[in-house]
């Protein structure tokens, strides 16, 4: 399964074209431009696989470097693409817009950073094996492609490409049974979810005769009259399948187990990259099938509220830091859902979801809403990626080999007195915690601000209030980490093994958290120009 498969095959998927004349359509180069990062990643991945097959050397650090370089270049390419005009490519199988390129960028970021983490992580456990980086890059490629796909089957395939690689990564850590269990759970439930997804796709196809989102958008209203039941069940199935990936409550239950069990670098990748990619998929689908009725908005708001509250509540009761971060990632998915709802509410001005209706909010225009919501979501995903990778980086750094598979491996007490043992790491961790909690002068605050602002400009006041209350409650468990690091005497003596790569990651993300938290200027300007392909 390579990323090229659907490029090669896509000409055969032409819809409206007389069956008699099958001609291969001619694609201009710039249609492939959005695919370049993915292509690069995929090729590098294969190379790595090959080197694994033929190489004899024990050390795999060169592979890590290669992966990092590849994802850096890919990220650069993606950044180039952010300025591209929005439009369809490859006869509508894919779209190109700033949004997808940003998601690709985030994916590359996640891939690069987690492979750096992995370098140190596996070196310390001398358990380096080459498939790791290959799979990692495949997964990244999957994310990138997912972000550009505009057609259900393509979307499904890319989702699977991303997921399959991640299943393998999650189960990669063979020592102890936790990693495998994580992989198994993730895989089995993931397969379940994607089966649901594809069944929904089938139903939609049946109702509308197309699997291509932009066409779907146009025929859906008619289809709704003809066979509403079919369409709705299709929509629900598809949404369920997708919400599974973003771990929205009540489809979140796999998250803590998988995040905890998976090797920490993989966890970082999942929480940073996969979430982003899954969100873009959900977003595209909703944008195309959503406008048909306000009912979907209610579902979204409901999901968002539930996710925020439950995620935080669950995290509060956690002593296991890694698991706590997993739960908090659920909560963050909830916050992002506010943004999604806002983006979507753009189509439904005057809705009465919030305390104030959008019209009362002094006539905001649909475009304004969309762009601000979009900006909010992107910024949030980006900031979350940076912060959470850093946080997991700290965990990876202080993880002890002998604890692999021990139930209390990441217990809070493991952090106690970190400030005296490793002031630098403690400081970084504190920063990440404040940022996740959304305390001003960190990037986390700005991100939340954007989202809530977007939410309120869409009139989702109630949701926003719930959001701030939830994040206030959430601050509790972030603070507890700091309490242990700074206000408790050290219980364990050893200081964790340092590795330049880990240190590098921590430094970079800590600095980013602060600097982008205070001067996000250029970044925000770029984000604000990010376009999103919308059918109308």
């Amino acid at each position, binding site marked *: 399964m390579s990323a090229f498969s659907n490029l090669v095959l896509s000409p055969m998927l032409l819809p409206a074209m007389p069956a008699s004349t099958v001609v291969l359509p001619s694609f201009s180069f710039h249609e492939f431009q959005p695919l370049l990062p993915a292509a690069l990643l995929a090729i590098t991945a294969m190379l790595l696989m090959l080197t694994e097959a033929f190489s004899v050397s024990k050390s795999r650090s060169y592979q890590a470097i290669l992966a990092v370089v590849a994802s850096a270049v890919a990220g650069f390419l993606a950044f180039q693409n952010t300025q591209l005009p929005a439009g369809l490519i490859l006869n509508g199988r894919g779209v190109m817009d700033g949004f997808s390129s940003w998601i690709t960028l985030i994916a590359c970021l996640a891939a690069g950073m987690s492979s750096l983490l992995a370098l140190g992580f596996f070196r310390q456990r001398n358990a380096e094996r080459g498939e790791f980086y290959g799979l990692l890059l495949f997964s990244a490629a999957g994310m990138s492609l997912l972000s550009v796909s505009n057609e259900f089957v393509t979307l499904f395939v890319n989702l699977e490409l991303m997921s399959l690689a991640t299943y393998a990564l999650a189960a990669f850590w063979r020592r102890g049974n936790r990693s495998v269990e994580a992989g198994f759970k993730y895989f089995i*439930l993931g397969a379940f979810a994607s089966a649901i997804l594809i069944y929904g796709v089938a139903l939609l196809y049946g109702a509308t005769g197309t699997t291509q989102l932009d066409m779907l958008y146009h025929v859906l209203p008619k289809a709704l009259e003809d066979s509403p039941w079919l369409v*709705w069940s299709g929509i*629900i199935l598809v949404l369920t399948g997708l919400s599974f990936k973003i771990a929205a409550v009540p*489809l979140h239950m796999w998250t803590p187990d998988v995040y905890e069990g998976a090797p920490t670098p993989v966890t970082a990748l999942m929480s940073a990259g996969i979430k982003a990619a899954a969100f873009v998929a959900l977003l595209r689908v909703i944008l195309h099938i959503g406008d048909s009725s306000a009912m979907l908005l209610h579902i979204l708001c409901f999901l968002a509220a539930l996710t925020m509250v439950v995620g935080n509540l669950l995290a509060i*009761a956690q002593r296991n830091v890694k698991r706590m971060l997993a739960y908090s990632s659920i909560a963050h998915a909830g916050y992002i859902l506010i943004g999604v709802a806002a983006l979507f509410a753009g189509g439904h001005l005057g809705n009465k979801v919030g305390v104030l209706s959008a019209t009362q909010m002094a006539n905001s225009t649909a475009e304004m809403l969309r762009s601000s919501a979009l900006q909010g979501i992107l910024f949030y995903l980006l900031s979350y990626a940076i912060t959470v990778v850093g946080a997991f980086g700290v965990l990876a750094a202080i993880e002890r080999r002998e604890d692999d598979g021990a139930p209390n491996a990441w217990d809070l007490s493991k952090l106690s007195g970190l400030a005296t043992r490793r002031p630098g790491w403690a400081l970084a961790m504190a920063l990440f915690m404040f940022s996740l909690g959304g305390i001003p002068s960190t990037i986390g605050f700005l991100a939340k601000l954007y989202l809530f602002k977007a939410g309120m400009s869409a009139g989702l006041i109630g949701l926003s209030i719930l959001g701030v209350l939830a994040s206030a409650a959430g601050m509790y468990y972030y603070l507890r980490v700091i309490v242990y690091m700074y206000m408790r005497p050290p219980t364990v003596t050893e200081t964790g093994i340092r590795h330049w790569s880990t240190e590098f990651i921590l430094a970079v993300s800590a600095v980013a958290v602060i600097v982008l938290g205070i001067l996000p200027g250029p970044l925000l300007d770029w984000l604000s120009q990010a376009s999103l392909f919308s059918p109308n």
Partner: protein
Amino acid sequence: MEKLFPEYPFPIQNIESGLWLIIALPLLGAFINGVFGKALGRKNVHWVACASVGGSFLLSLLVMWALGKAQPEIPGPLAYALSADYGTWFAVGDFKVNFGLFADRLSATMLLVITGVGFLIHLYSTSYMEHDKGYAKYFSFLNLFVAMMLTLVLADSLVLLFVGWEGVGLCSYLLIGFWYDDEAKAWAGRKAFITNRIGDFGFLVASFLLVLLMAASVKEAPRGTPVSNPRFSASLAEKGPLAFQSLSTLASTLATPDISAAKLKAAKPDHKPALLMERDIQTGPLKGFSYSGVLTVVLLFFLLGAAGKSAQLPLYVWLPDAMAGPTPVSALIHAATMVTAGVYLFCRISYLVVLSPFAMATIAVVGCLTALIAALIAFAQDDIKKILAYSTVSQLGFMFMGIGCGLFWAAFLHVVTHAFFKACMFLGAGSVMHGNGDETDIKRLGGLRKEMPWTSWTFLIGTLAITGIVPLSGFFSKDAILFGLETQQLAGYTPVLHTLYILGLIAAACTAFYMVRLYVLTFEGKRSPLAKLPHAHESAWPMTLPLVILATLSIAAIVYGVPFLSVPNAPNQTLIEFYLAPVFNASNQANQLGMKAHMLLPGEFGGETPWNLLWTGWIKAWLIAVVCGGISCFLYLKVWRGGRKFPAILEPLRRFAHNKFFVDELYELLLINRTKGLAKGLYRYVDAFFVDRVAVHGTAQTVGFFGRVLRWFQNGNVQAYASAIALALAVGLTYALLQVLS
């Protein structure tokens, strides 16, 4: 005095602008002794202290001279006043307070008393406190007190007066608790301060209400009245609403006849002209109340304040305990000066006082009851200082009666004379203690006359003065008050005054009794076997000299009190009355305008002086004094001498009185314990339990609880998770179905 010094030693302006020096000197002394006291050494310390007070005594003399003659360029009562303004203290909006000093004949007399008696007591202390460790501290506190008292007297606005008012309270707190390592003494200090604080609460509220009153009258008074006069609004803007000038203008305004109302009533015959103060207030927070009503309330709040400071009912309880301080302190603060601040205050705002007969009656009643109760308690006390303390309380009661019946000059005269003889007796007591190893129980003293001649003679004079034996000042001052009670008329409340007259006589009788008892038990007879020392020794000259001087003064003060040694162009006025006439001028005017309280104005003696009344009054008083004095003399010299049992019938009564009628215990029970209980209860149940535990932690714990509950669902079973997904799916589908069907 004009006879003695026809010429001013200085031009008045210099004295006027130099008023601040009077306060500054003791303040400086306090500062020097307080900061460098240790370094200076005892000699220099008491030099600094005495010199500073003596200096301000001399300055006060200058002021006195300056006030002797009128300043032609200033009209009205202000002709007999010096005033100096040292800039704004604070000013917000139309409210303003200046550092303004103001000395008229009232404050000048007070000045002399404070600095003069103060100086003597400083002198006395140099010997009395000789062996104390906190010598410098003591003198710096004492100086600070004098400075504060002078501020109180010289202030030209209520706010500045309040500075002195609280300042003296503060100093008395410090001095009562001077020997702080004795728990009880320290507590006594705190008790004094907090009781005074209750009074200050009254003072503050009263001043705020006055501000409101001023604002209202300025807004509403018809033209032609003094407040609507542009010159007044100028001075109001300059001096602020609480300056005494402004207040007097307010008073005269309120007392002006209300033309419009008069017109209405003109039809009816024999109507009393309505006054402005009977109007209702139209604007502002006081809307709906009548001026006179508010004024009465204001005066009652002031009464509360004065009761706190001057130890009247119900706040007198702190004074007896205040005797914990060194004896000179008791003499200066708790007999001569601070405690008379309340009387001074009422004299100061006499023009307001006379406008509310009800308030005056209340003041008189409070004073009278205090005088009686204190006297009764004093009967059964054995501690020399305690007895003097209660006698002070009861004498203050007399002064309040004087205020109440509108004879301000008499009340003030009593302040002065009382300052002399009471200070004299306190110092005498101090000297007794000094000579007898700090023995204060009069039962364990006795027969000191031979051993301490000076002390005993001066003490005798003091006793006679306070009992009111004719050729002594106390008689005239006290009798002037009683006479006032008998003859003055108070619109609607004249009968009250007459009743009070009787009670006053009784109080006087008691006074005579217990004071003589005190004297006899302490000085006469033979030395008690229980005495600490076999032989007492007379004190050194720095202690006896002040005694002698004060004794002389308490005789000499008579010249102010005798009516018939008449002053040119004011027949039959007492000297003090004549001298203070400009001060109480305003009140007389207000009074005449108002005709509210038809008082027999002192000036009007001339016409038909009730000589017969006067004489009978005097004779009554004199007889009472002599008789009661004689009785107690007889009883304690002959009957109960030498441990003879007290008649058993009276024993419970005695014990009841001895325990001060259990008033302290009552307060403890009703107020203090209640408050403490309330505080504890609130803290334990409302704050700690309800607000903090239930509301705050409760919320947190509820959240945590839900977290744990949800966590329980994460049981790690894949199929459980899957079923959650399936469930969500099912719900979604049904929801969609419903939407479609509807």
